[in-house]
């Protein structure tokens, strides 16, 4: 089965490992990810904060390209890209005048027919159908992840309905349980890591991350797992600094969900590029005899 795929800027730069992992893991699940041609940046939150027209027009161009691909579904692994694209699709559906205005400028017009899926939409259905269980080489016994959703996977700046619970989502837990891991119950799963504030308002971001890390440690998680490249790089690259500022003694590896799937499916740590983490992730996996 083939589905369209929008990687977004992060997955072609600092989170390239997530791009590689997504393709590998999905192939193993019988899904070929077909990257849409000539995609552009979705504008992320920067467009919304600067120009309302662009915040819709930029994702709209990608939607036009995706509609023209002839495929019926598109995976967007990055939470920010997923959020912006889904919101745009809804705005354009409700505002045909704006849609026409944007379509005039596009070589591939938005039709609004492609279904936008987050990585959890697809993985949860594969967990429920038992297809993930079929592909398992080993169970992730002893792994106690704090499933970290962040903001943009469940909350939208508009009335968008999702299948999971907004305040206490369970999708990532469902997938982790299918892999034999024991996700912990905790209170900060949908709290904000600060996103771009890590760069432009660092103290605020460090404070927000400290609360998330402290709660995960108190609940005895031994790692984080996330689906968002911004959450991953913030919690991973800044964890040293957070721990130093807030006197936190222990560090927790921050896995992409695809890394846990990959390890359970028998991919090597090299194949999953686990050496590209800031907080060591190999030690824990070795200790638990998972690699």
């Amino acid at each position, binding site marked *: 089965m083939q589905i369209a795929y929008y990687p977004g*800027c992060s997955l*072609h*730069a*600092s*989170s*390239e490992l997530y791009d590689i992992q997504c393709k590998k893991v999905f192939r193993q699940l019988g899904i070929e990810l077909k990257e849409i041609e*000539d*995609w*552009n*940046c979705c*504008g*992320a*939150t*920067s*467009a*919304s*904060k*600067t*120009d*309302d*027209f*662009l915040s819709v*027009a*930029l994702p709209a*161009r990608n939607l036009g390209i995706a509609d023209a691909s002839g495929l019926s579904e598109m995976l967007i692994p990055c939470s920010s890209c997923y959020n912006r694209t889904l919101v745009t699709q809804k705005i354009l559906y409700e505002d045909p005048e704006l849609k026409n*205005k*944007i379509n005039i*400028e*596009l*070589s591939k017009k938005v039709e609004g027919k492609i279904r936008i899926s987050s990585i959890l939409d697809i993985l949860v259905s594969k967990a429920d159908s038992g297809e993930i269980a079929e592909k398992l080489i080993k169970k992730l016994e002893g792994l106690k992840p704090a499933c970290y959703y962040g*903001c*943009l996977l469940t*909350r*939208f*700046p*508009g*009335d968008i309905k999702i299948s999971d619970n*907004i305040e206490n989502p369970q999708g990532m837990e469902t997938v982790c349980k299918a892999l034999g891991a024991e996700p912990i119950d905790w209170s900060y799963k*949908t*709290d*904000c890591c*600060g*996103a*771009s*504030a890590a*760069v*432009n*308002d*660092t103290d*605020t971001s460090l*404070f*927000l991350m400290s609360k998330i890390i402290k709660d995960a440690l108190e609940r005895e998680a031994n790692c984080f797992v996330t689906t968002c490249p911004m959450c991953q*790089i913030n919690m991973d*690259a800044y964890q040293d600094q957070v721990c130093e500022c807030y006197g936190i003694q222990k560090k927790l590896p921050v896995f992409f969900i695809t890394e846990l799937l990959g390890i359970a499916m028998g991919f090597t740590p090299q194949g999953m590029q686990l*050496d*590209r*983490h*800031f907080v060591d992730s190999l030690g824990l996996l070795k200790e638990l005899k998972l690699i």
Partner: protein
Amino acid sequence: MSSSVLQFEPELSQPLIQEVMSRSGQNLLACYQCRRCAAGCPVGDETGVTPDRLIRMIILGEREEALNNLLVWKCVACYTCGTRCPNNIQTARINETLKQISKEAHIEPLLPKVSAFHDVFLRLTSHFGRVNELVFIGLYEMRNAKRELKHGGGWKAVADEMKNHAKLGISMMKKKRMHFQLNRVKRLSEIKRLFKKAKDEAGG
């Protein structure tokens, strides 16, 4: 708030509230100050002004305060306030609108780095169609350095900022998370047209 006595001049407050409501698409008048937004705001403790306070400022027509408070600039756009609001008011959208109004009015932002971040992000998108992180950080730091030198932060402030990012940059390089290749869109003319239209829309 500007004074201890509550002052309300309907004719003065009308233009601001109308502008914010129409641009943000949020019905501010539906706010009945239940403060669920304030309870959930991750930066509320730091900013002092919480979403409910901001809405009240706008309703009272306190333009200057509404455009110059920490919430507008520290809002992390997590959308918690909006999803918890019983009347579906997205204060994060209101903050976005206020940032835009503030920029159009050439008001110096309370957190200039936040404003520089988003400006540079969009500028790069207009040039390449995609955001290249390395070029992005370079331009963003140049913008910050220029401002520090102009407004008296001096070379020390510039050096401190650079040192922080250089440290992160080095560890990103070590972890092969730094990307040197320049990504760009092929049909850039389409991107340029969208940016031109955005400018026309704003002008009109």
